[in-house]
C-alpha cells in the first residue's frame, strides 16, 4: 500500500497510519511529508486555546457539528500533556466528542505533547499538514490548556480562538499573560454563569487599549457550549476573520511567517539530530564528559571540533 496515494484517495486508515509514521519519526516520515506537501494549503486551521476547564473540547464538538451541517469536512487535533516522569499520557479530549466518532466527514486524533512545551505536540505542524492534504476543509488544533504559556499555537494556525470562562478566579491573570496578544477571537464560554458581564467588560477594555497595530479588532463572543448557544455566531466570527486575512493580505504575510518558522524549526531539528548522532555513539558522550571534568577539554573546544569535523 502506498500510504500517500491511499491517503490522497481518501483512506482514513492511511491518514491514521501516516500521522503515526510522522509522530513516531519513522524512516519514511520525511518522504511522506515531501509527497503530501504539494497537496497542502487548502484547509482553514483554527487554534482553540484557553485554561483547563474552559470547555474547549465541548466547544470544538459543537463547532464541528455546525461545520458539518454546512457541508464542510473537519479534522481535529486534540493535545494533552505527556507526563514528564514516565513519558505516558492520558488523552481524554475525545470523551466530549463521542457523537462525532461515527461521522465519516470528521477525523479526530489525540496527541501527547511528548516533551514539547508551549501547549502543542512536537509534530502538530506535520499532522495538520497531513489532514490538510487529506482534504479537510477546517482543522481544529485544541491545545493542552495550561493557559498562559500557550503562544506556540499562533505559529501553526490561521485563526486563534481563546476560550475563557467567568468565575475561574484568575480571569485577570489569564488576560494579562500573553493571551491578549495571540487571540484573534475571544470566547466567553459557560456564559450563563455569574461573572460573564464583568469578564466581557474587562476583556473589551483591554482589547481597546491594545488595538494599535492591526486592522482586526478581536471580537468577544459568548457561548454556552453545553447547549450550543452562540456557536453559530462564533463560526461566523471565524469566517469573518478568514475573510479579513485574505482581503488585507495578512493571510499571505502570516503564512510566510509560518513557513519561515517551519523551515527554521525543521532545519534546526535535522541539524541537531545529524550532529548528535555523531556524538551519541555508545560511550563517546561519556568520554567527552570525562575529559571536561578532567580539565583536559572544555565544552567549547569540543563543540568547535565537532563542527569543524562536520563542515569539512
Amino acid at each position: 500500500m502506498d500510504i500517500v496515494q491511499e491517503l490522497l484517495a481518501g483512506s482514513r486508515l492511511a491518514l491514521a497510519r501516516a500521522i503515526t509514521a510522522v509522530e513516531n519519526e519513522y524512516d519514511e516520515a520525511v518522504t511522506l511529508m515531501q509527497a503530501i506537501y504539494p497537496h497542502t494549503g487548502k484547509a482553514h486551521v483554527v487554534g482553540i486555546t484557553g485554561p483547563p476547564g474552559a470547555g474547549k473540547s465541548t466547544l470544538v464538538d459543537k463547532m464541528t457539528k455546525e461545520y458539518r451541517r454546512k457541508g464542510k469536512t473537519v479534522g481535529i487535533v486534540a493535545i494533552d500533556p505527556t507526563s514528564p516522569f514516565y513519558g505516558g499520557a492520558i488523552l481524554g479530549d475525545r470523551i466530549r466528542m463521542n457523537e462525532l466518532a461515527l461521522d465519516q466527514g470528521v477525523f479526530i486524533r489525540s496527541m501527547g505533547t511528548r516533551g514539547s512545551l508551549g501547549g502543542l505536540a512536537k509534530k502538530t505542524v506535520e499532522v495538520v499538514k497531513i489532514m490538510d492534504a487529506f482534504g479537510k476543509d477546517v482543522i481544529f488544533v485544541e491545545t493542552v490548556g495550561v493557559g498562559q504559556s500557550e503562544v506556540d499555537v499562533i505559529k501553526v494556525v490561521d485563526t486563534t480562538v481563546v476560550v475563557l470562562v467567568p468565575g475561574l478566579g484568575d480571569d485577570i491573570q489569564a488576560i494579562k499573560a500573553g493571551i491578549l496578544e495571540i487571540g484573534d477571537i475571544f470566547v466567553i464560554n459557560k456564559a450563563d454563569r455569574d461573572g460573564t458581564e464583568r469578564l466581557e467588560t474587562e476583556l473589551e477594555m483591554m482589547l481597546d487599549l491594545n488595538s494599535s497595530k492591526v486592522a482586526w479588532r478581536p471580537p468577544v463572543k459568548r457561548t454556552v457550549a453545553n447547549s450550543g448557544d452562540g456557536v453559530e455566531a462564533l463560526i461566523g466570527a471565524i469566517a469573518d476573520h478568514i475573510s479579513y486575512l485574505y482581503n488585507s493580505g495578512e493571510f499571505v504575510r502570516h503564512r510566510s511567517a509560518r513557513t519561515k518558522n517551519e523551515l527554521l524549526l525543521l532545519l534546526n531539528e535535522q541539524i541537531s539530530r545529524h550532529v548528535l548522532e555523531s556524538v551519541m555513539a555508545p560511550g563517546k558522550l561519556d568520554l567527552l564528559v570525562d575529559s571536561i571534568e578532567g580539565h583536559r577539554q572544555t565544552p567549547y573546544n569540543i563543540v568547535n571540533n565537532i563542527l569543524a569535523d562536520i563542515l569539512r
Partner: protein
Amino acid sequence: MQRRIRVLVAKPGLDGHDRGAKVVARALRDAGFEVIYTGLRQTPEQIAEAALEEDVNVVAMSLLSGAHNTLFPKVVNLLRAKEMSDVLILGGGVIPDADIPGLKQAGVAEIFTPGTSTASIVEFIKANIK
C-alpha cells in the same frame, strides 16, 4: 525515535462501572503508554472508529455487565473489517473462566479477570504488541 505504545481503553455497552478502566488507564500512563479513554456507553462501531483514527496498538475493553460474549467479538470483527488485524485486543471485567476460550477463539488476545494486577497487563502488552 519517538515511538509510544497507544492504547484505547473502552467501555462497550451500557455498563457504568468505570473504576477498573480508570485505574488501568492510569497505570498504563505511568508505564509510559499513551492512553485514549473513550468514556462510557460506547457502541462497537464507536470503539472501532476511535481505534482507527487513533491508530492504536491495543484496544482494551472493560465490561462488568455480562454482555461480553456479544460485544467483544463485534469489536474484533469490526477491526478486522477495517484492516486493523494487527491491533492487540484485550478484555477485562466480570468474565467467567468458561467464557474465555470462546472469546480467545473470536480474536481477543487475553482476558484479565478480577484480581489481576495492572503490572501484569503492562507486561502482557509490552510482550505482545506487534
